Each structure stands twice: as C-alpha cells, then as structure tokens.
C-alpha cells in the first residue's frame, strides 16, 4: 500500500480532529476526507463536461 508524507504539525492537527469527530483511527479520517474531496472534484469535472456538451448544442460550436 502506498504511503504519503505529511507535515508533522498537520498530522497532529488531523489526529486531534479525528478523535474529536469520533473516527477510530487517523487513517480512517484521512481516507474519508480524501474520498469526499475526490468525489467533489470528480463531480465538478463531470458537471463541466455536461455544460460543454450543452454548449456544443449551439450552432456556433461543434
């Protein structure tokens, strides 16, 4: 499994936040955050492509 390096201060903050939010481990917390962010970015990409496809419906654009 790939490993990531993060700043130790950020790690401490994330660990504290994970505990407060009720996550079992910081690993679970970080995985959740990344998944959430990725879902948002991927949706935004899909939305942009949907808009572009709609704009191609204009006669002026193919």
């Amino acid at each position, binding site marked *: 499994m790939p490993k990531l390096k993060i700043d130790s201060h950020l790690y401490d903050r994330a660990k504290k936040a994970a505990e407060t939010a009720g996550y079992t481990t910081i690993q679970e917390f970080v995985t959740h955050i990344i998944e959430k962010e990725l879902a948002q970015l991927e949706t*935004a990409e899909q939305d942009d492509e949907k808009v572009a496809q*709609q*704009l191609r*419906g*204009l*006669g*002026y*654009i*193919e």
Partner: protein
Amino acid sequence: MSYHKQKIDRREFLKASAATTAALTIGLPTKKLYAARRKRAKKVIVIGIDGMDPVLSEQMMNAGLLPNFDKLRKLGGYRRLRTSIPPQSPVAWANFINGAGPGSHGIFDFIHRNPEKQCAPFYSGAPQLPGEGYWHVSDHKLQLTFWPFNHKPPQTLQGRKGVPFWDYLDKAGITSHVYYIPSNYPPSPSKYGNHYCFSGMGTPDLLQTHGTYQHYSADGPIPTKEPGGGRQVCIFFEDDTANAELIGPGNSFLEKPRPTSIPFLIHRDNRANAALIEIQGQKILLKQGQWSDWVKVDFRLAMPAFLPDEHLKGICRMYLQETSPNLRLYVSPINIDPSKPAAQISEPSYFVENMSEKLGLFHTTGFQEAYKARVHNVFTDEEYAEQAEMVWQERLRSLQYAQENYEDGLLFFYFSSTDLQAHLFWWDSDEKHPVRSASEAKKYFTHIKELYRKIDHVMGRILNRYGQEATIIALSDHGFANFGRQFNLNTWLRDNGYLQPAYAGSVLRDTDWAGTHAYGLGINSLYLNLKGRERDGIVKPGDEREQLLQELINKLEAVRDTNGKQVIHKAHRTDRAYLGPQAQFAPDLIIGYSRGYRASWATCLGDITEEVLLDNDSAWSADHCADVSQVPGVVFCNRPIRADAPALIDLAPSILAEFGFKTPSSMTGKNLFAT
C-alpha cells in the same frame, strides 16, 4: 436551465404525503385576466429580422426585388446599423434591449467562463446557480423549501443585467408585447403588469439543452452517438417492429440523476412506404417523407414511495425520412409544452398558455431550426429547408396572433429565419464552398434571396395595416459573411508561447496555468490569465498586463493567411470599448475577424488543433461572429432617420422617444429620429 423540480414546499409536502393520489403542483400561478385596460397609447411596432444583411438588401432593393423596404428607403427611413462588439446575437439584442453596450448588460459572448474555477465555461444568457440543502431519503434527494429546512432550489438566472427599455413603458402604464426576442430567457419580469413577453433564443428544450434531436435508424451507429445537440441510435427490427426509447429530462430528484425515458414501437410497412409509431397510447401513421403533427409526451420522474411521481410534459414532432432499405426516423428536440409549460417561458406565465389556446402547439425552444441535424448530416439541404420553412410558417401564425392581440403601445416581433437559414445557405462569392458544388451553393443562396422577398412581403402587410397610425421599425442585429476559413486562437497562443505546455491539446483539460499568459474561450473572447482574477492567474495587473495586451494586439492583427489576407481585422480592448459596471467582467480582448474568417470550431471550447488556420468543412458555411465593422445590420422605418450612422443601442432611446420619454440615464444610445 432548471425546472426547479427538486423543491417541495410545506403545503405540498403535507398534502402529498397524506394522500398520494393528490398531484403536486409546483410553481406556476393560475391564469388571470390581462391587467385592467387604461387609456390608449401610441403605437410603435418593431420587427426584429435576425441577420438581415445590408449589402444583399441594398442589391435587392436596387433591383426592385424588395419594394416595401425600398419604399421606406426612399422616404429616408433606411440606414446601415452599427452592430455590437462582438456581433453575436445575444450581445447584439442585449444592446438593443438596454440601449447600451456590453458594459451595461454584461453579455460578451455566447460563452462566458468562471475565473474562480479558472476557466469553467457556461452559457452567458442564463447562468445556473446550484441548489443548496437536500433531504436525503432512500436513493432520492428532495428539497424542502419551508421552515426549518429552508432548502434553496437551483436557479436559472437572467444573464442580461441593467434595465430593459420596456421597464420604462411598464412603469408608465404603456403596454408592451414582445415575442421571441433573444437574450430574454428567463423572461423579463413585469413589475407593473404592463409587459408581456414570450422568451426566444436561449430558451431550453425539455432536456435543458439548446435543442437535442433524436434519430433512430436501422443503419445507425453502434454504440449510440451523442454529438452536441443530437442523439443517433441504431434500431433493430424483428418481424417489422423495432423497440426504441425516447430519452427525456434527467430525474433530478435522484441522488444520482438518471435520464427519464419513454419506450415506443416503430412498425414498418415497406410495401406501403409507411410506418406506424406507437407511443404512450398514441398511434402516429407516417408515410415516407411525412412529418407528424406535434406529439405530446409525458416523462415520469420516480419519487420515494410515500410521494406521488412527478411528471414533465413536452411536445415533439416526428419525421419519417425513409422506410427502406433502412428505416430512419427523426424526432425533433422535445419542446416545453406551451399549453402546460414545465418552466416559465413567458411573462406572465399564462401569456404563452393564452397563445396556445388560440394557436395550439408550437415550438418553444429558442433555436427552432434543425441546424444540428443538417450539420451532422442527418438531414439533407432539402430536408433542412423544408423544416426551416415549417418554422417560418409557424412564426407567421404567431405574428397573426400578435397582431390580433395588439391594441396600442409597443409590439415587438422577431424572425430567426434570416439568420438560421443564412448560416447554412448563404454563399455570396465564386470561391469554393465548404460542402457544396458551385451550382448548389448558388441555388441555396437564391433560397436566401427568396426569404428576403418573403420578409419584404410581411413588411408590406404590416405597413398596409398600421402604416397610417404607427411608427414601424424593422432592424437586424448584424449582417452576414461567408465562413470559409477558421482560426484556432488557442493553437496560435500555444504556438506563440502564451499558452503552456507546448503539447497542450485542450485549455480545459491540460493547460499548465503556471506558464500560461492568455487563453481563448467562446467565439470572440480572449482572456489574460490575470493574477487576482483567474484562480491560477500569473499576469500581474498594471504594466505587465498593459504590455501583454499591446503585444497580443500587434501580433494578432499581423496574422496573415497563406494568400496574404489579414485574418483578424481588429483586436478590441474591452477596457476601452465598453462602458458601465459590467465591463469589469468582460474578456480582455474581443477578436474581430475579417470577412470570410471566424474562430475555429475547436477553439470555442478551448480545444487545440494541429494547425492555426484551416478550411471550414461544415455545412454551417456562413457566419457573423466577425469584426463589428465587417457585418453591420440594417434599420428601416416609416419615418425619416436623422442619424447618419445609427447603432443598435440607439433603438431603445428612439422607441422611448416615440412614447414621449427622454433618454434615460441607463442608456448610452441616442434618438435616431433627432437631428
């Protein structure tokens, strides 16, 4: 372009969940009578003729082929009309509506971009705001607009800012009826109840697109192809019957919205050269080459079990192109049903329903001519001409209705035919046409001349009916030019080092913004990658911006085609061309192409091709998205025009002056009847 079909208010929620048989009613007010009548006002009639070209008009007037327009010219009521920068219809008609330029109304191109998302494109006329807050239940997401939820439904905004001229009439108690005008979706609200309008260019179809046809063919593509504006499907026959599916709007109540659909059957009879279509209990018998009447279709939006399903109603027409050897059936874009509109397409919302009571069903999408079917080679030239003629005939019936329901005040009526037929059929030189032989190009240009004669005939009837009692104005937003060569602005920017990396293939997908100074998006727009404005901007405002702008202008205006022709007539700095509060949102440069040239198909949405300059190979062989100086429009009037060089922005103050108003401070145009 949202139908706001995600929201449920408190009353609806209680009613619906208590009795699932009760239908949800969302949004539209019930019909009421027109506002109480008041004293009679003057009559001003304005006919918008999109794309009517001055050079062709003058040639035809000189040849005696446009007698009614020529009569106005001889009375001193004709001028070439200066258009907008750039000469795109949404920009130009917004100039007309506000009596002021893009700095006032904020429409700069068909396509704008969101700099906060770096360069995410959107349709400028009707930007979308996403909804906020949902109640998640099973696989649905519902919006409850009442306390304590107070979810915010998605909104379609009017992209045009500033004050439309009819607002001044509305306030003064003068009635205005405005039909099909571009840059007016969602329709302009009337504060005092004296303004009535039916929206035009920009109004979506039921799929929330600018018009998506569906084409079913026994030799269709596998898998289904979805070029923008169309859907091409292969169908399979068993015992002369094929199952097909009409795709409808997405069900936005679902967590993962899916398109709705209606299954239907196509029975073919090769011996009779006919087919029978069975859809939602309706049987439509079509002979080869025959169009159906409007067909009503009802798309069901599945809801959670405790709520009744929602429905969106639309209308479409079917055309049986061929029965054998390969059956081909064309289904038009699914229009919003004017007798029961799923979105507000008129002001007040009952205005279009009243029209429908008299006229039956008719097109409601902004773009009604089936140009995409022609450009995608689904239609032949003849088929496109026939469909466009149907639009023209329908528009004449609407004009008749408009006249019958007009007593006084302003009547504005718009024709799209001169624009959307010219894009396909205009060709006024002996140069090689992109897709037609010289004789075919000549034949279809004659078709455009015939159309001008038909418009002249319409004008004659209006002059005969109202000439003694009304000020009558006819105008176009721009003229027309051949479109033989295309220029990829983004390829040019990349090849000249303004856009990185050197192998970039798309502005939207693979630009290195840390090394990019400028990019093109839309048909005429160039943006700097400006620090503090673009999300990843690098060009510093001030000296660096100034130097870069001048450098780009010098280099762009120096671009020459292989035959030595100047490609870009002028690159306009918008900080000098535009006045008003919206100017700050404008592109940095508007690229004004020479006649014969236009932005390439690819560059409009940021795609980068190998070559900077290439031939246009599309049936869309004429255009007007050139420099402001290259494609002026026309203005005719049954009273003398005093201004020497009038512009689109002068019409609104002139119309108001006819009703006795001084030019409002929101306008920069001048009364063209004044000396």
